[in-house]
């Protein structure tokens, strides 16, 4: 299951799905977040790729 890490426990993420569906807020209460929701994965993947993002990949299984 894809797992994402946050730089601290205050991080929340809202995003949008491919048809404009509202996604989140995704709350990193423990500093990490696991999800199999395709919409959440889409948002977090894009965010984790940014250089200065507070969200990063822990592992990602296809």
């Amino acid at each position, binding site marked *: 299951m894809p797992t994402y890490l946050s730089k601290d426990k205050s991080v*929340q993420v*809202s995003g949008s799905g491919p048809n404009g569906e*509202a996604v989140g807020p995704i709350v990193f209460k423990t500093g990490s977040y696991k999800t199999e929701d395709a919409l959440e994965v889409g948002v977090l993947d*894009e965010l984790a790729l*940014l250089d200065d993002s507070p969200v990063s990949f822990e592992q990602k299984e296809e």
Partner: protein
Amino acid sequence: MPLTSPSNNYIVGIAKQTNEATVNTVEEYGAPVFSGTPLPVEGVDRIAVTDAAAIDGDPFKLGDQHWEAQNLVFPAFGLHLGRLLFSLWPTDTLTGSSPNFSHAFSALGGATTWQTMMHTDILGGAVEWTYEAGQCAGMSFSADENGGPLRVGYQIVGKRPTVASYTNATPQSTSTDGYFTVKGAVLKYEADSATPATELNVQSFNLAVSRPVTPLATADGQSVAYLGIGKISFDLTLTLLKDDHEMVRGAFFGAVGGSTPSLTIPTGSVEINCVHTINAGHSFKLAIDKVALFETPPEPDPAASPLTSAVTGHIFKPASGDHVKPTLINARASAY
């Protein structure tokens, strides 16, 4: 003797829809405007056939009914601004803790959430309008030497306007809530570096991020059911009180110290900061990490007017993230 109705009693609301079909009946944020309103839009044509009488044919509706707001201009309010930004930058990453939460907006060009807008009728307010399933068509940010709130232009195009009641946001934004302003903040730019430096000679600026949204009618549809989303484009202009030759030389000679024609485009950076008039911990920043700043050579004026320079920014894709990166620090404790 009857009195005319004034046109000042107006608040426009906005709320994020969870999906296209679910229309909001409660404002998330309501705010006054400098100008503009969502409007129902429809086309009417006339049946152009030959006729014994030399008179125009009868009219018919084109079946392209939808709604648009092309000229909304808001003051930059602390909470309301985030809802507008999220409708164009569809990822909000929240960090921080009370009372100052940082919202970093990203994913410009990605699919964006649907918005409902609403307002009461200016004529007495008895009729309430709801505008369904809108997609943001652009935002602009401008300020000049005259101060006051940062002016936030907002364009949106949506599907169906209806007369339908809704519930106001509590509270709605007002001018007594404070606002973001450039006065007292720091403006930065650099003609040939990704790290902008504080500059004191910016007289005015306008930054527009546009995304054309085209309402598309179908042969059998009575109103628009599709919205065509176009490419994002940018328009940055600065008016500077001229104090050096860096940009005008960079634009033509390829380097801020250049002296011969060149095809090289030097890239610099711009950072627009705003402070909040009430909450010292709140701020709004627009960062442009890679931009070519081209100055048109100024012309002499026998009237001895101050020498200003008009600068056009051609924005590049930066090494990471978006072309324009908004960061809003306000009191909202959850991501937009």
